[in-house]
């Protein structure tokens, strides 16, 4: 039986096995490190050696038991929720306004929205730090949310604008001809149809805030230290094995959020 060709140049899968093997290793390289932390977090050893001498949940107990970790977790999640809400609202409105306007200004504005993704994070971080120092916004939840939103809004704008691009704006026109005002037409006709991308943007905003390191290092001080800041410091000083348990929990969260996002996208293509 002739093997089915894999490409237009008539190469079969069998002859490219070496390619698939290499790619498999690369994929392993991408996935394995994060996943290996999971079993290691249940290791009893302080040094997380492999194989672990014994199994235990002591590092989870250390995480939940320490007040600094609990506080940091609260700060990070609160900041992530608020960032998600703020960025999704502002970003969706901005994307809608720019897409509907279609003038020279909208192209410029669009570029301005992508600037935070282009400028190195360390530069944004020290700029915000300096700015906040004048206003006393360092080490406040408000300050953290605003700073994280700077990074999250562009992501929401890009996500929602892309979906608006392939959306038929005629429908809003029809809704308006039937008697709906612009805001009502947006709410009842457009928003339900772009809600997948809005949700994607929101999840992206959430995870961006939760995982944000560099800016938080500068502006999230004192009792408003984020989880990321504490983890960073702990990693710098010594490899605190508690981080293994936190990592596992964060990985689980990532899997759930990524799954949700993909699920939402799949459902929209029913």
């Amino acid at each position, binding site marked *: 039986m002739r093997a089915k060709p894999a490409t237009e140049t008539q190469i079969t899968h069998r002859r490219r096995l070496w390619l698939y093997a290499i790619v498999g290793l690369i994929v392993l390289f*991408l996935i394995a490190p994060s996943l*290996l932390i999971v079993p290691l977090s249940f290791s009893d050893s302080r040094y997380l050696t492999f194989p672990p001498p014994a199994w235990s949940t002591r590092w989870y107990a250390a995480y939940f038991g320490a007040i600094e970790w609990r506080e940091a977790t609260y700060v990070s999640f609160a900041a992530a929720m608020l960032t998600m809400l703020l960025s999704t609202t502002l970003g969706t409105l901005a994307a809608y306004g720019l897409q509907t306007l279609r003038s020279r200004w909208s192209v410029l504005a669009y570029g301005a929205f992508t600037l935070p993704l*282009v400028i*190195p994070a360390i*530069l944004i971080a020290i700029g915000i730090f300096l700015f906040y120092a004048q206003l006393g916004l360092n080490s406040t939840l408000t300050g953290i949310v605003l*700073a994280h939103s700077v990074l999250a809004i562009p992501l929401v704008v890009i996500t929602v604008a892309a979906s608006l691009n392939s959306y038929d704006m005629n429908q809003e026109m029809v809704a308006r001809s039937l008697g709906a005002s612009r805001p009502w037409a947006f709410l009842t006709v457009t928003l339900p149809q772009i809600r997948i991308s809005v949700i994607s943007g929101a999840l992206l905003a959430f995870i961006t805030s939760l995982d944000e390191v560099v800016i938080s*290092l500068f502006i999230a001080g004192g009792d408003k230290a984020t989880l990321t800041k504490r983890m960073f410091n702990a990693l710098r000083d010594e490899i605190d094995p508690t981080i293994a348990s936190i990592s596992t929990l964060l990985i689980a969260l990532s*899997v759930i959020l990524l799954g949700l996002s993909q699920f939402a996208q799949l459902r929209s293509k029913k």
Partner: protein
Amino acid sequence: MAAGVGSTIGTDNLAPHQVGRNAAALRAQERAEQWMLGGLALPGLLLIGIVALAPIVWLFWLSFRDADGMTLAHYARLLHPSYVITLASTFELSFLVTSICILLGYPLAYVIAQARPRIAAVLLLLVLFPIWTSLLVRCYAWLVLLQRRGLINTWLSELGLIDGPLQLVHNFTGTTIGMVHIMLPFMVLPLYASMRAINPDYMRAAANLGASPAKAFWQIYVPLSRPGLAAGIVIVFVLCLGFYVTPALLGGGRVMMWSMQIERNVSYYGDWGAASALGVVLLVLTLGILWLLARVIGFDKLTGAR
């Protein structure tokens, strides 16, 4: 063309169609609507502008000032050997990481682009997964794996390949490995997008005309994937230039990157002049390289605007 009721002196220099019934009111309505729509983007723009962009302008200004007034001293100091070494090692690491990402990323993107939709979806998910995982978690994973008693060293000595544990982390090697891990998805995704857009008819035509599979690949496919490759290279390179977390954690103090110099000047020395000068240089380099890419593949593809 009859002037409508209500036309007044002072409208003489308007074109005929601008003077007419309701002309002024219609113009005003149109303007108001434009402002309203544009105004939707205003809150977001203001937030970004005030919180992030204005301070950077301020930093730019600060880089030219010290206690006595305007000066270029901060920039002059950057010519000091230690800064030059930092710049060199930053570029060195960025080049190395980018090159490795090309080597690893191209085959991966190629296989995903050619795979059946189901398999491609799974592979893409696996590539996306690291991006959705916390940066610190991934750095930590490498710290654990590469440490003296970590997984890699344990396996290598069990396989008899080494006599003693290798110093794989807290140095340049560990930093490189970690950075490649972080940057690889950013190389794969634009490459994949570009490869997907390659019309399979080109490859069929090449085969038809007698090209061997290898030739068709190198002469047709690779050049067609150039936009995605260019985008990937620039994105990864630019990210590496300004990267802070991974070198700070995996470098063990032996790797000094430009971003770390910035951080040190702020946190340790409180020298805002030096830090802002360093920052400005980094920004100029970043924007310069991006501008080059925009020239090569077109600005609209970069921002994704319509």
